[in-house]
């Protein structure tokens, strides 16, 4: 009897289940429902996010968090090694704590500087930042060591950079036309006198004698001592300097006609400009080459930044 009841009960349960198992939502209802749910889910994920947690623990790889900004463990190791001058394994806990404290102090000051907008207001900070960006841009290029061929090509293209300036001690005598002793003297007569004076000087006559005999005086254009070529050029002017530059030590120039009279130049001491050869100048060439590479990278970087920037000038301003 009991077995029969069990069978009957099972049949009834099965009969109740069958309609449930065979129940199918209409196709038109099921798919849109799933779609609505999926759409809401996707849109919800896009629209909402987990509230950002306030970090109270230091994430792995970091030594500390300062106002939610991290100080990297690797930076601490580098700083400790550099500051203490020994391997990190030998750094004591007290030393490590001191270095970390210094880094936290530095981070606080940097954050404070940003809050005070120092890059906007302080020249030194701006210069440091500019230099920092320049160095960062140039770093990959500077990491490549230039070959000797590159340095030699650079040397050839910039030879003037390795030429030392010459110097000269020159005496500039002048014969004023129509001077005190002969008011009717013409330029031709003055030239004849000057030519004669030059002849006597070249023949070994003393300068004082020739000056007295022909009425020559010091022009006052040159210094008593030796002066660099650029200074001599400045003092002598465009007419006399080219002639002086061709004279060797002890030589006397031909008479030179200028606005204030006939000039005679006597080169008393001369050191000619010299160009260092590549081997001698190699270290200077290397430094100049790297500086030029750095400048070129900086220029290129600024060019790109300018192309990306919106720069508006006030009316009347130009750059």
């Amino acid at each position, binding site marked *: 009897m009991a077995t029969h009841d069990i069978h009957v009960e099972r049949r009834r349960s099965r009969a109740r289940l069958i309609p449930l198992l065979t129940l199918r939502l209409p196709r038109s*209802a099921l798919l849109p*429902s799933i*779609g609505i749910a999926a759409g809401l889910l*996707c849109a919800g994920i*896009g629209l909402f996010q987990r509230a950002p947690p306030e970090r109270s623990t230091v994430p792995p790889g970091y030594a500390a968090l300062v106002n939610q900004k991290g100080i990297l463990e690797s930076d601490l190791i580098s700083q400790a090694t550099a500051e203490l001058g020994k391997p990190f394994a030998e750094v004591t806990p007290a030393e490590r704590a001191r270095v970390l404290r210094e880094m936290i102090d530095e981070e606080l000051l940097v954050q404070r500087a940003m*809050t*005070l907008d120092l890059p906007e207001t302080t020249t030194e900070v701006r210069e440091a930042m500019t230099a920092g960006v320049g160095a960062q841009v140039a770093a990959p290029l500077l990491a490549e060591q230039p070959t000797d061929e590159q340095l030699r090509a650079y040397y050839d293209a910039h030879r003037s950079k390795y030429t030392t300036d010459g110097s000269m001690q020159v005496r500039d005598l002048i014969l004023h036309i129509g001077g005190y002793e002969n008011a009717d003297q013409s330029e031709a007569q003055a030239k004849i006198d000057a030519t004669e004076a030059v002849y006597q000087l070249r023949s070994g006559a003393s300068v004082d004698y020739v000056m007295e005999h022909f009425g020559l005086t010091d022009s006052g254009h040159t210094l008593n001592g030796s002066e660099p070529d650029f200074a001599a050029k400045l003092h002598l002017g465009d007419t006399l300097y080219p002639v002086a530059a061709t004279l060797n030590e002890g030589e006397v120039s031909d008479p030179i006609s200028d606005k204030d009279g006939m000039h005679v130049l006597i080169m008393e001491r001369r050191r000619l400009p010299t160009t260092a050869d590549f081997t001698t100048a190699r270290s200077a060439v290397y430094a100049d080459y790297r500086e030029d590479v750095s400048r070129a990278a900086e220029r290129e970087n600024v060019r790109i930044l300018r192309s990306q920037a919106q720069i508006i000038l006030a009316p009347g301003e130009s750059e």
Partner: protein
Amino acid sequence: MKRALLAALCLFACAAHGAALRPGAANVSYSVWIVSGSSVLVRFLLPTPVARSLTGIDVPVLTTRKLGDYVLQHLDVQAAGRNCPAVDQGYDLGKVDPLAVGADLYGFEILFRCPAASALALHDHALFAHAPGHVNFARIEKDGHTVQQLFTANRQTLSVPDGVAMPSAGVASYLGLGAMHIALSVDRLCLLLGSLLLIRRKEEAGHAFAALLVGYAAALLGSTPGWIVARPTLLEPFMGYMVALLAALITLRELRQPRISALGCPALLAILALAAAFTHAPWAALMLFGGAVLAGSLLTASAWLSAPVGLVPLALLGFLDGFTLPSALAPLHLSPRSQLWMTAGFDAGAVLIAALAMGTVLGVFALVRERLTAAPRTLLNEIAAACLGGLGTFWLVSRLYS
């Protein structure tokens, strides 16, 4: 005729405020006033988008210093009717000390020293001149007692009572905020009034209002623990999306043009999702993709579920709008309890004004229904759907890519 009237109201609302709102730019600021004897220390926090809105108006170029000067000029403290001067804080700071308060906020600290410690009045005039809807959430601390208050365009001065604890801003203040929030949001009004176009029977109006209530209630439950927060930059575009979706539903249901609605709306969203994905905006792309799937499914479902589909945008409106105040309050790090009653007041105000807007329109319709029976319903529905669709798409795209 009901639809004609609603369409006209929608158009009126749209014409009143045609420009898109700036996405994610809740027009709020925050201040903490610490009263200690005759000194008042003020910390003023300004979200970056709000600070940017001052550029060219009150601040020629947005720098911390210029903004600090602006804040100094617009905050005042008085004691017994006399002005309290701001104190020079030394070093090279001057009277305004800039604070580090996070990436999206500007923070300043100003110390006012008063000639007396009685009858204190705190004044905040910042931003109200060019943004009348601006709200400053203020926290006032005195003698260990902290209260939450509000500065608004109509209430730019708060008096600190002597001897007794200062009361917090009442629920009515937040209720007013919520009401103003809905009343000044054209997109939300369009959604509320546009959804009435889908209502055919009295009981459906009740269902619609219930859907809105359910949305706000769900948002209140979801936002109070503070586990999830909305992405404000995507919330406002999604409002535009829902207006466009509503237009598609109206087109589908009322005008029987299933192809345009059922294919056009999801296709447009799918294209936008692709564009967002290409512009490396994964969350926007996901939102748009979800929106496309939702639109396609909802529009398909509307064929067999006539009544409930119109409720989905309303429930979503309530749910998403319910996150508006919690998002704005996030920088204050309030306790869930404080935030709960503030949000509840705000949501109640929003629901009340929504009910008022919907009820007024339905009431007006009930009054004039008998007289206006010969209006071209189909044409007006088409106009309303076109306006809503156009505006919704405009809001979606402009807010997404601004």
